[in-house]
């Protein structure tokens, strides 16, 4: 076949997912946490599309589009929360926003 195999795409997807997870765990700015979440979702999308190409079924691409819609919704709600937090003069730091801790 031409080009790289699906395995190569899956390795890239796994690396993207792990990088996003590292960002979510490392960073304390909720903005960067949201950006890292986007990286994780994109890693999952890449794996979905790679499997879709491997098996010749379009279902993976359809699901990737649904994941993109969910990601857009998540960004709307997340950014709304961040702006609401900033308006209340609270620190934008996920370690300090622990009021809801059980």
């Amino acid at each position, binding site marked *: 076949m031409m*080009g*790289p*195999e*699906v*395995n*190569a795409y*899956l*390795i*890239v997807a*796994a*690396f*993207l*997912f*792990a*990088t996003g*997870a*590292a*960002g979510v*765990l*490392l*960073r*304390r*700015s909720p903005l*960067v946490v*949201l*950006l890292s979440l*986007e*990286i994780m979702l*994109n890693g999952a*999308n*890449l794996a979905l*599309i790679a499997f*879709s*190409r*491997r098996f*010749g079924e379009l279902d993976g*691409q*359809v699901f*990737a*589009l*649904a994941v*993109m*819609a969910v*990601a*857009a*919704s*998540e*960004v*709307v*709600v997340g*950014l*709304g*929360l*961040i*702006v*609401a937090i900033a308006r*209340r*003069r609270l620190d*934008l730091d996920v*370690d300090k926003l622990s009021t809801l801790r059980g």
Partner: protein
Amino acid sequence: MGNFIVWVVWVVAAFACLASALAVITFTNPFFSALALIGNLASLAVLYLMLSAEFVAAAQVLIYAGAVMVMFLFVIAYLGRQGDAPWAGGPSWQSLAAVGAAGVLFIEIVVALGLKAGGRLSDEAAIDVFFGSPHEIGRLFLTDHLLAFEITSIVLLVAAVGGVILGSHARSGQPVDSAPLEVQEGRSR
């Protein structure tokens, strides 16, 4: 020759993807993180094109890089400069544990792929020219995946309503919109 060009494009796109992902989580300034994520999304779109997912690649550039990232940049500009180094604050063992956990996650995925898939992923299915076209994806959305399509619309509606409520709630409580810019900048420093 064609094979060689395909490999060159793949390697460039994949490394741009990985490097910009690392840049997103290591930049101190969230503005640069968002710009790096735009590069990440663009290189991912190239990978999608190589997997003959033309419609998803176009949607990726339009929705993510076009709409979502512009919203991100607006919010970052609204909040002012809020530097946050990845290693600043918090004990260093937390940072090390976070990187270690991510590395373990990566190794786990790769091992699971190797164990489950082995070499069975190497031969690709034959596809026709309509694979990944808007026509085929639209047909699947309105036939096999109609329920998922409708649920997606409800999710988007709920998110839109939630965004409006989150955005307008603070205005009715305290006079927050009157905050002078100097206060915000002074606080973020």
